């Protein structure tokens, strides 16, 4: 059986990682944030230990109609045909400005149990889109394997698309536009990764 080569994330990462709580730059293998002391257990103190299952479309606030959810599922499926490794989770919540979306997303990604059929690797490839119906804010939280390819700045155009649609009250368009823009960003990221691999092979 041929071995699949695993690369170090540093080889492909285009940006450093930051603390979801205080946004300070941290090391990829740090156990806690040296600036604010944030760890995973702190998020559990904030949000509890019993999160809902992290379903592909988690709409606890009825932001989307069933028909709209079908359209979102369809858009996710189309994305998956192109980038099958990326697992999408689209979550609508009502949090408010006082709650940090990045920390909430961090909590959901790590504390939600794996769904039936979902592996650890699947969760590491997961990208969670959080839509706050209360504020109209949107955020992206990425698993360890997905975070390497796009930096926080790379996500801004896609999130801007989503926010723009949310401002207009079109919550469905917010997601579909986001996915369309995200796909374009991943296309660039993929080409970049292939170029890097070729360079490495040449040297």
């Amino acid at each position, binding site marked *: 059986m041929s071995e699949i080569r695993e*690369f170090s994330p540093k080889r492909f990462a285009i940006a450093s990682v930051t603390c979801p709580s205080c946004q300070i730059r941290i090391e990829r293998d740090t156990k*806690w944030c040296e600036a604010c002391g944030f760890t995973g257990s702190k998020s559990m103190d904030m949000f509890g230990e019993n999160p809902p299952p992290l379903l592909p479309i988690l709409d606890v606030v009825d932001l989307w109609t069933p028909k709209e959810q079908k359209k979102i599922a369809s858009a996710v499926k189309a994305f998956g045909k192109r980038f099958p*490794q990326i697992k999408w989770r689209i979550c609508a919540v009502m949090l408010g400005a006082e709650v940090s979306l990045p920390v909430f997303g961090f909590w959901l990604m790590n504390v939600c149990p794996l769904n039936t059929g979902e592996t650890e690797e699947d969760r590491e490839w997961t990208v969670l889109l959080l839509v706050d119906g209360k504020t*109209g804010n949107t955020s992206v939280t990425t698993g360890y394997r997905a975070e390497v390819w796009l930096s926080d700045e790379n996500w801004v155009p896609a999130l801007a698309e989503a926010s723009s649609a949310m401002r207009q009250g079109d919550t469905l368009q917010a997601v579909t536009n986001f996915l369309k823009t995200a796909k374009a960003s991943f296309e660039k990221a993929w080409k970049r990764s292939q170029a890097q691999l070729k360079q490495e092979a040449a040297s």
Partner: protein
Amino acid sequence: MSALRYLIIFLSLTFAVSADQAQSGFKYGERPTNSVFDPTGILTVKEADEIATPLVEILKNEEIDVIVVVLPEIGTAPPLHVARGFAEKWSQTEINAVVLHIPGQEDSPWIFPGKVMSSTLPPDVMRQSLEEAESRARAEPSEFSKIKAASIEAADVMRFWKGSEVIRDEVKISRQLQARLIFEQRDRLIKLSLGIGAAALIPLIFGAVFFFVRIKSSGAKRFPDLRVTHRLGAPYSGGNNAVSGS
């Protein structure tokens, strides 16, 4: 695909140049099998057979085609023109002649040789021998005997001239020319068909290449596999700060 359809239609129309083209439109219809055309009915069946039998043999054995045509009248048309019309539509060999007879007409029957003869032999030589043959036939007492005599005289004259070197060479050249014409025509047709075929193929090839490129570029893309390093005690995600506000 529409270009291919047009090509097929074009080729079928082109190759469907009617085999009957030579006979289509001729008011007297198709050549009778026994070389004797008598719509007047002046000849009995037995008489027609008697005239036709040697003509069929000569055609088969010597490639000399003598067609006997008996018409009630030809109006004001010159007999030569009428005979030529029959020769063009019905003759089966290069050495041919038409015996044209109008019953009751004093200067009938006439013997008209085909194009090869009339364009090769000196006109006065040809006319003299034909006039002699015609006058012998006209001297016969009955319509049947006139026609029979004329057909025999015509066959004899054709046989005599066919033996001559001039006619032999002319026939040879004529056949070569004909063959070359046929080949050239076929060549032109093939070139035209190839041209149209190529023109039809070009968009097909482009379409196939475009389709292939689309298919290739539209497949699933995979990122390289990574070694995972955990941080902040988190099993699946270290978190980030990609946020956008409304």
